[in-house]
């Protein structure tokens, strides 16, 4: 019934061209149209942070953007972190420091932290907690996530 819009965008270095309904959220586009199911959908109103991805390098909520708006943009999802089968140092740090339990929120945490650690490679604990304030984890109590970020910051140097 609704007209579709043709969009062309790059996700994790791969160029895609698709026709989308205007109301299709970017989070659903990534999951259902591109089968990139690493981007998780939690609250769908911008509170939980689990759908965080990078849009032209900045961390954003993919549930609050329409796929049509990403036309011409470069996106990175959690699938874009590991290179040649080797985990990103931050992913390794989350594993080593037990920075996750069920793992549902983890992709959002990782994608929030990538630009944060790029901008601030030596964060103190208060800065880390502030950076994580927009991501909700219901298992860990955050202690080990903070440790994972500290470890990840070391590994990324």
């Amino acid at each position, binding site marked *: *019934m*609704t*007209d579709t*819009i043709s969009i062309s965008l790059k996700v994790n270095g791969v160029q895609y061209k698709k026709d989308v*309904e*205007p*109301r299709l*959220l970017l989070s*659903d586009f990534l999951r259902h149209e591109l089968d990139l199911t690493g981007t998780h959908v939690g609250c*769908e*109103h*911008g509170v939980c*942070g689990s759908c*965080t991805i990078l*849009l032209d390098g*900045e*961390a*954003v*909520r993919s*549930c*609050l*953007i*329409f796929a*049509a*708006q990403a*036309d011409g943009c470069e996106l990175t999802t959690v699938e874009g972190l590991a290179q040649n089968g080797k985990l990103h140092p931050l992913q390794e740090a989350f594993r080593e420091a037990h920075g996750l339990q069920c793992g549902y929120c983890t992709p959002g945490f990782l994608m*929030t932290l990538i630009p*944060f650690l790029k901008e601030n490679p030596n964060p103190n604990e208060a800065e880390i907690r*502030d*950076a994580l*304030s*927009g991501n909700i984890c219901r298992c860990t109590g955050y202690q080990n996530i903070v440790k994972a970020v500290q470890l990840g910051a070391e590994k990324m140097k």
Partner: protein
Amino acid sequence: MKPPSFQYHAPKTLAEALSLLTQHGSDAKVLAGGQSLVPMMNFRVAQPAILIDINRIKELAYIKDGNDGLRIGAMTRQRTVERDANVAKRSPLIHETMPHIAHPQIRNRGTIGGSIAHADPASELPTVMLTLNAKLLAKNAKGERWIDAQDFFVGLFTTALEPDEILAEIQIPDLPARSGYAFEEVARRHGDYAMMGAAATMTLDENGKCKDVRLVFLSVGETPLLSSSAAQALIGNKPTPELIQSAAADTDITPSSNIHASERYRKHLANVLGKRVLTKAYGRVATDR
């Protein structure tokens, strides 16, 4: 949790957007950063038939020096405003307020104009605009007009903008000499909607007496609220700690109870925060002199 269908337009120029808005009127909704509108659409609280996405209009994103203040394009991202050295220097109240707005991911996408035009009384930017009495430039296909912040916020999520108008620019007047400022809020978790918040500016005369003061509260009614009692108590007097205490305690606000806090507690917070921002604003005049 999926938005209903709508017709989507993504004009590249303001002229194009204004012509679409003239054509569709109140059937259309303007999509700025979308950090409030898209959640409302996901909940189907908002169901616009037509969405005019103004994110591709480059001419609306800028921070410039004006003659007597900063000029900020409505589509400037909140994160850009937060990081801008000129904003920090020329409008430190805005700089101090930005980190309180939601979370970094939201500020990366949210815009200054979007938040002002959304006019949520619990939001920080409308409160600060009223404190600074910013001037807001509304444009339609026929022309433009300036609206003072004190005339802009007319009700709950309601502004003085007509259905065919877009907020294009925000002008932040420079604070006069011998002025101080402050913003504070209390939220359950950092980045959540505040249970109470207050912003203040204060200007002293040559003798150290209060020449002008603006104390504004967020989340106490349908719009940000300018306290008249603070001005009555302080103007013409030297702002002693006792006078500041009574200026903040005597505010004429009546917050309502909600799920997060009772009326009594929120009134208590208003008094505490009012005192804090007035004290801080006064302290900053002294140190800046």
